[in-house]
């Protein structure tokens, strides 16, 4: 037994030695990579003050090929268009959710990055992509150069994009009842939604043609269209639909309202009213 003990000690020493023996590396020097920050412009400071610091969201307006689809012919926005666009987004989207969901709501559930692109992202089938949400982390907004704050239809379309993408992000955080949704208009979904006529889509119980793409888009379109329309505009949409389509859309609306209540404890209609109020403020000022 004694000899075994002895060996144990020797083995321990040898083990320690062999692990320690190579530890003669040089101490780490300074990084060779250039980490100097570019000087911040007034716009950068504005973004920090209005997006980065309060909501932990970065707004990227300078080109970075890694955040944009390289197969598309896109370009960065004009610098003087960036702040107006971000201002519209903040007032109508962030402020509305903050009012109804609480100060920290957007900070907790939000894309970490908004990428702005100047021009149109046009597709070969003649449609144009207005926005993209990547895995709940990043929202890309196109056509920033063309945003006209005084034009209500234009502002509504632009905000609809971010409302739509944000609904995706909410869904990616807490899923909605896809099965129940699927049962309402199971036969209406189609890959060639862009060839459909709006009146036909509405008569089937879809709020837009794009809603017919799939259940996920249907939910996002239903929620975001209601959010970016006024109460009166949405009532007019319902009034224009045949009874059967209207009933189906209202079933979907009920699921949306329930989802906001159950998942985030938010009153969806209060949110819509806040968005309408904020939109009026943006367009009229």
């Amino acid at each position: 037994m004694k000899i075994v003990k002895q060996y144990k000690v020797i083995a321990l020493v040898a083990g320690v030695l062999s692990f320690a023996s190579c530890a003669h590396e040089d101490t780490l020097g300074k990084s060779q990579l250039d980490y100097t920050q570019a000087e911040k412009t007034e716009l950068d400071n504005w973004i920090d003050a209005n997006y980065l610091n309060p909501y932990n969201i970065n707004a990227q307006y300078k080109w970075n090929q890694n955040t944009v689809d390289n197969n598309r012919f896109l370009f960065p926005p004009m610098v003087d268009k960036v702040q107006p666009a971000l201002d519209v987004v903040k007032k109508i989207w962030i402020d509305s959710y903050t009012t109804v969901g609480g100060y920290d709501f957007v900070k907790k559930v939000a894309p970490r990055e908004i990428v702005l692109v100047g021009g149109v992202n046009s597709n070969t089938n003649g449609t144009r992509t207005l926005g993209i949400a990547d895995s709940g982390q990043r929202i890309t907004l196109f056509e920033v150069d063309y945003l006209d704050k005084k034009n209500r239809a234009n502002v509504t379309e632009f905000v609809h994009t971010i409302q739509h993408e944000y609904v995706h992000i909410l869904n990616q955080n807490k899923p909605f009842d896809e099965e129940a949704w699927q049962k309402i208009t199971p036969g209406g979904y189609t890959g060639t939604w862009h060839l459909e006529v709006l009146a036909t889509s509405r008569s089937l119980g879809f709020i837009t043609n794009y809603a017919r793409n799939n259940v996920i888009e249907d939910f996002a379109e239903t929620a975001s269209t209601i959010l970016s329309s006024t109460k009166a505009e949405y009532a007019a949409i319902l009034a224009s639909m045949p009874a059967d389509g209207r009933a189906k859309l209202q079933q979907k609306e009920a699921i949306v309202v329930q989802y906001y209540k159950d998942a985030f404890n938010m009153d969806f209609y209060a949110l819509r009213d806040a968005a309408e109020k904020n939109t009026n403020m943006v367009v009229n000022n």
Partner: protein
Amino acid sequence: MKLKNIFKYLMLGFVALSLGSCSNNTDAEQLFDQTPTERLNAQKKELNDLLFTSEYGWKAVYFTDDTQLGGYTHLFKFLPGNKVEMASDFDSDTKTYTSDYDVVLGSTVSLLFDTYNRIHLLSDSNSYPTTALRGKGYLGDFQFLYYGQENGDIIFKSNRLVREVRFVKATAEDWADLSKNLITQQNLIGSSARPLFRSLDVNDGSKVMKYDFSFNVATRYVLAPSIDAGSSEVLSFGVGYTPTGIVISPAIEVAGQKLTTFLYNDTDGSFTATGTGGVTASIKYSNSPFVLTDDYKLLLDGNPQMVFGYIAANLYTAPTTSAYFKTLINKVNATLPANQQITRIQLYFNSPYGTYIEYRFAGGRPSIYHTVTTSENAANKTIVLTNDYWDNGVAIIAPPGYLAEIDAVFTNTAGLYVKKESFRITYSNTVYTFTSAASNFRITTYQL
């Protein structure tokens, strides 16, 4: 095995490991003195410094894709603080604008224009010169991979299409004269006062090969099919404008020489590139078509009836409708009330009522008919129309004064070239053109 032996071997193993493990001798050959990071950083610094070495900045004629598009001249002046001043001849706005640039590391060191400026006009998916480029704009990039230097030029390759883009040192004149590129564009389009036909003559020092020159200003691209008998060669190249002429890509290769730079001659409107040993390439005007057809023979006396209609709504804007024809039509319309413009000019050959020209109007104004006789000019391959009488469908009338000028072209004694075209416009009808042998008059018609 005994426990003791296990320990023995274990110890032996330890000793071997401790002795061998610290050797840091790798047999891999060191190709470079520096680590990849150090080399990339050095290259980045090299490019950053290089951008500031030219007093008046840099000039690049950017051919985004010289298989279908021409070159767009850009001037860059790099300033401290990652700012760049830029001007371009993409459109009539040749003013200088300031934006940001950066030298970034990716797969390699690249120059990136990261905020909006003139070069981004080439990369707008919604602004495309042909329907085939829908969604792709002008195929432009604004990130350029650094490939080193050559004779003081900086060599880049575009990020997506990997085309060479060469930055050459700009001069004060390059900045001052950029707007002259637009005059060159007009010269290359050609004035309506010049003849209708243009050839590209390539001289290899002993013989001349002729090509039918056509320039598409939307794409800045030239297609020139050979007009020599037995040759089906087509020259095609993109065009970039300079204050004194054009540069082309790819080059025209003649007798082992590459011709790229053409100089403009305002006297005859020609553009000429000159090599050595009598080698030249020249874009020249010509008064007559290069290929004369026998299509006019179908219209001579004794043939079945043929009717051709110029329909203003569809054919006024046809590429083959000449500016001089439009001028004459506009003059006629200017004399008429706004609701009674010319809608059609129809040519009836060998109808039961003879051969005549019908002028048809909008707004209920009755048509006017000019009956003519035809004859052949076999040498020039033209058909000659000769006045017989005018009528309004009811009675013979005096020649109407407001139609005199345009009608005189149809009945000019030099005659009309007739060509059955291979293209279609809007409808499936065969298109025929009638070109005056005496002036820049060409009318585009449907066979009806």
